[in-house]
């Protein structure tokens, strides 16, 4: 689709726009893109790491699997949207198998979980590399071109990404607060023994919640695929950042997840303008460590705990 079709009538007013405003809005939107992705990846991690106390180092691979699902569907001639629908399914399948085969046997052995999930992560990475070959995989966005937002011109696909991410988050909030399954999850989180006492199958609830988190991470991978470099090893960066989101934000609430994502995503995108990405990463790490030192229970101290 030609870019013009996306421009509203006031596009001609652009020469009069102040440059500073352009810069601010672009930075804000870039930050919002990163924050959206981090929220989706962090959501699954908040469930497994924050609530079930399972340190899943293969969580980044759900993102990778989602991105590869989109690549695979596109490479056999399917559209991006079909790929995006397949991404959470792929994430869920991998997550379900992982929970069933490994994680549920290790709930009482945290260090073993770390080692085993890292092993799975290596196996998945090498498996993808052996299946799809070396090198970055191309994924084309469904919509080329930009959208004029009066203050700035911004790639249309990124705006769609932000919208889908926000809608997904809204859906998750509704699911947790308004459905009977959400009630089960909240009960298990608050008191596992009591939940078993009132007849909730906690094992099944854990398994479904874990699979659900994997599916959301897969969706995040699918969404980010056209923007990122799709590689079997891409997951580890999302893994580290998503853990920061959960650690900084504090566990146990959606508010913490949002706060953590805004902290990590916002800081990263603002710093990326000024300095090299890896230095920016290092500063974000240090800031996260200092934040944890100052507020050990998270920036947004969730009342639900």
């Amino acid at each position: 689709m030609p870019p013009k079709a996306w421009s509203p009538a006031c596009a001609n007013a652009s020469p009069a726009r102040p440059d500073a405003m352009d810069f601010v809005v672009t930075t804000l939107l870039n930050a919002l893109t990163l924050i959206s992705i981090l929220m989706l990846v962090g959501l699954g991690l908040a469930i497994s790491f924050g609530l079930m106390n399972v340190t899943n180092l293969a969580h980044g691979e759900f993102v990778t699997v989602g991105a590869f699902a989109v690549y695979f569907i596109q490479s056999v001639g399917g559209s991006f949207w079909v790929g995006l629908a397949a991404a959470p399914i792929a994430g869920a399948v991998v997550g379900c198998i992982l929970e069933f085969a490994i994680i549920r046997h290790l709930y009482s052995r945290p260090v073993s979980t770390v080692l085993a999930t890292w092993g799975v992560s290596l196996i998945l990475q090498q498996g993808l590399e052996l299946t799809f070959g070396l090198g970055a995989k191309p994924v084309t966005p469904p919509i080329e071109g930009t959208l004029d937002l009066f203050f700035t011109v911004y790639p249309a696909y990124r705006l769609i990404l932000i919208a889908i991410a926000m809608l997904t988050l809204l859906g998750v909030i509704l699911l947790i607060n308004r459905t009977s399954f959400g009630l089960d999850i909240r009960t298990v989180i608050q008191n596992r023994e009591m939940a078993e006492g009132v007849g909730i199958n906690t094992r099944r609830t854990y398994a479904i919640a874990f699979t659900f988190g994997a599916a959301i991470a897969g969706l995040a991978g699918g969404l980010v695929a056209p923007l990122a470099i799709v590689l079997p090893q891409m997951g580890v960066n999302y893994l580290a950042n998503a853990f920061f989101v959960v650690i900084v934000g504090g566990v146990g609430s959606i508010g913490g997840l949002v706060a953590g994502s805004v902290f990590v995503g916002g800081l990263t995108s603002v710093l990326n303008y000024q300095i090299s990405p890896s230095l920016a990463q290092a500063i974000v790490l240090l800031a996260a460590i200092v934040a944890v030192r100052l507020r050990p229970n998270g920036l947004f101290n969730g009342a639900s705990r």
Partner: protein
Amino acid sequence: MIARDRNWLVIFAVCAALAVAYPLIADGYQLTVIRDALIFGLFAASLDFFWGRTGILCFGHAAFFGIGGYIMALVTLNDAIPFGSLLGVMGAVAGAAFVAAIIGYFLFFGGIRGSYFTIVTLAMGVICQQAAVSWSSVTGGDSGLIGIPPIAFDVGGLHVDLSQDLPSYIFVAAIVALVVLALWSISRGRWGTVLTAIQDNEVRAAALGHNAPLRLLVTFILSAAIAGLAGALYVCMAGLVAPDLSGLLLSTEVIVWVAVGGRGTLLGPVLGAIVIQRAQQTISSFNPSLWPLLLGCVFVIIVFVLPDGILSIYARLKSLFRGRRQAQ
């Protein structure tokens, strides 16, 4: 002296005797292979000193190895600095200890333990590797730095030059033996006992008057300093330094060496490093991408089949036979 300590010393003496006898049967190339494996063994022992004694897993230990290696390379490659080898080693140890002190201070005094610590150190490793790649004006970027001279220094009129195979092997073996012995005596003494108490129940240990965060911090710094020493030794022997040395894969491999060798035994990780390096070279020689795949499988197998390392097979067999005899 209790039986466990005696057993450990006997095994240590056997290993030391083998290390002394090895040059009699091996040629120069074989010596350098074992020498490099021993350096990684020292690295594994440094991780074991922290992980085995505190139960807290550091997932970015290669960061310290890499920091030590890069500092050593930069100091020895700079002609303006006199006594390059000695200052380089000191700088490497101090640099790794410094980074560990900063990160450890915030984490331990911030109450970060267990999985959270693992995650933050994982990120630290990722960032160190990225920094090594992108800060190319200093680190040489992806290709690293080459042409690092072998260790050479004068001490008390004695000239030490490690450019030959045999002297470098003896030097490395002696350092590894000394450090492992020192770490062992620290961890079996009062310091180690308090660490075990902290691992079992930190609140109770603190109630008994032990400054738990400080103990953990000092242990972590010591562990990182030895990792830095191993890194410095390695780059001098290999003659080059590259971003891989601080990478996640090495951080992961060292965990496997410790886990396979037996966590908390100090000697086991050294042996684990030597054996697994050997296996890695054999496997990588016919397919380089097979190794990470197998490494992943090893992780899963360790967790489910051998949670206490290879040495535990012996203990298990023993208890199996004892159980049979009692049953008869």
